């Protein structure tokens, strides 16, 4: 089996795979904790290939490194909007469906999304939603809309993600619009709402929101479902998670092959491996985010499978949308975001 990408390739030059009998290694660039130890060990037991992984905490280094052409990764796991950018910049290798016998395990509802039509380049890895967690003692009735986050009565009790697209998504959905709207009037109304909301927000935070909710600094915490679901599962009497009925963000991290990856056989062996039901279940059980693998459900812990925060119902999902790259309108949003934060 071929090994880690040969060093010294200039951009655009092709070189034969680096020979190396007995050296079996796969380099993955991924979010922390996304690959449980037991999955890697099992893969090594079966194929003798060692999976090495390096970590990142945002999509930007992925883009920069793939663009530079000098990062030698065989697999990356970018977020949805980043997949589209990488495809557009021709930084990904098309998937050879024929080499993936387990592809059929994937739930068709999660395939063929706008950021990668026909899944030419990516496979769903895990997915989730963005909603908010709330403190039951302070919130009174169980909320089910975005309203509490914009209610002046909750001044100083709100946390919002420090993420331009996510905040706009909440505002747009609350106003009944698509979160990928590029209509200037619609965007302006959303921006005005966010400007008014700023006064109510105690803090914007994208990394630590569940802890801030748990510590009691806020009563409502906008955030990704995984961490908030864990908190709610641990202390159900005190905390809950809401996927608002106006709709919310649907996000997905997908696994892709960089265009310059070389270790093709090993890569497909690994991709097929993580498409196996039991393996996919191990990943889900490890990090409490849902996967798109249908037969895996048999092996997922019931508390996770039945948690609506992690596996929401059909109707709850119906109104959710992916964040898509909105082209030029990104600059408009960025100006609004600067204004919101600067006031």
């Amino acid at each position: 089996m071929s090994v880690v990408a040969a060093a010294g390739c200039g951009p655009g030059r092709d070189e034969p795979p680096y020979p190396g009998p007995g050296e079996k290694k796969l380099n993955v660039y991924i979010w922390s904790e996304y690959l449980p130890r037991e999955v890697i060990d099992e893969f090594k037991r079966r194929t003798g290939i060692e999976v090495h992984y390096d970590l990142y905490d945002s999509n930007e280094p992925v883009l920069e490194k793939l663009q530079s052409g000098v990062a030698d990764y065989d697999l990356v796991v970018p977020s949805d909007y980043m997949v589209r950018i990488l495809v557009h910049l021709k930084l990904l290798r098309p998937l050879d469906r024929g080499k993936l016998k387990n592809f059929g395990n994937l739930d068709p509802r999660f395939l063929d999304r706008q950021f990668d039509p026909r899944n030419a380049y990516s496979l769903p890895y895990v997915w989730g939603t963005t909603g908010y967690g709330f403190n039951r003692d302070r919130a009174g009735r169980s909320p089910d809309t975005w309203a509490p986050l914009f209610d002046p009565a909750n001044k100083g009790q709100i946390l919002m993600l420090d993420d331009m697209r996510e905040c706009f998504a909440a505002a747009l959905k609350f106003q009944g619009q698509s979160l990928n709207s590029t209509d200037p009037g619609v965007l302006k109304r959303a921006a005005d709402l966010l400007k008014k909301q700023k006064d109510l927000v105690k803090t914007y935070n994208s990394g630590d929101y569940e802890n801030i909710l748990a510590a009691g600094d806020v009563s409502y915490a906008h955030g990704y479902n995984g961490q908030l679901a864990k908190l709610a599962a641990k202390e159900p009497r005190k905390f809950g998670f809401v996927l608002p009925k106006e709709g919310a963000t649907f996000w997905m991290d997908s696994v892709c092959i960089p265009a310059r990856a070389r270790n093709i056989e090993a890569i497909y062996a690994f991709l097929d491996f993580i498409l196996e039901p039991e393996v996919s279940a191990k990943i889900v059980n490890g990090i409490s985010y849902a996967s798109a693998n249908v037969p895996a459900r048999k092996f997922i812990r019931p508390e996770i499978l039945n948690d609506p925060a992690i596996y929401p119902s059909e109707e709850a999902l119906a109104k959710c949308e992916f964040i898509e790259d909105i082209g030029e309108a990104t600059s408009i949003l960025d100006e609004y975001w600067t204004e919101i934060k600067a006031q």
Partner: protein
Amino acid sequence: MKRGAPGRAAYLLVLPTWATLGVFFLLPLGILFLVSFGQRATYGGLKPIEDLGLYISSGKFLANYARSFHPIYLQICWRSIWMATVTTVLCLAMSYPIAYYIAVKAPAGRRNLLLGLVVVPFWTSFLIRTYAWMFLLRTEGLVNRALLGAGLVAHPVELLYNNFAVLIGLVYGELPFMILPLFASLEKLDLSLLEASQDLGAGRASTFRRVTVPLTMPGIVAGVILVFVPSLGQFIVSDLLGGAKTILAGNLIQNQFAVARNKPFGAAVAFELTAAVLALLFAYTLYTKRKGQDVLL
């Protein structure tokens, strides 16, 4: 005191730095400088320019620089300068006495130990340290509990997610960068000069102001630069401890590179910041040269 003739020695001494920084710093930045004259393409990246001549003569290539003079960006700039100044002043005030203690008053054998103990806290993870500050400062945190328990306040004080917390975080993080340069300068302070000043009738305050401070000015200036300048580009502390409710120059540039994927504009702002600070530093150098002092690089 500087020797007159340069000799080849000087060039030999600076060669390693010139080579390393020249190749691995100036060149990359040079590329980015060119990028700052470009325009963002739909997916981030650069828009190809059809007619270079027209692009330059029409002044379009300065679009990013022009945009950065928009009032909202100037306001951000001003806020960053203000925050950095306050941080630096507080830092200097806090650091001088302890640097003095370590350099002058502490037992000679203990100096390196005491100095080491100043930096060691910063070899832990910044994130965890900041979480620890949040734990201390939040409404139900330790500080408030202590204040309430001691009866100093009737209600918990808002110590977190505001400018107060940001200042604590910034000053805290910058202390080593002020204490260490001050120490380096104070350590060679000739105490007999201070004694002589007092023998000649100057009081303690006067001696401090007119003997100690001027003698340690190089350390003070070094510390001020090492604290003020990086503080201008700060943003993580204000995000975590300040609740991310303000946007500073650092946030602006970060956003352009990361979220808005508008590298040309981000680069333009970064280079303007650079030009402004360099101008400031060289103005100061000229000022001190005229006075015959020699305190900057």
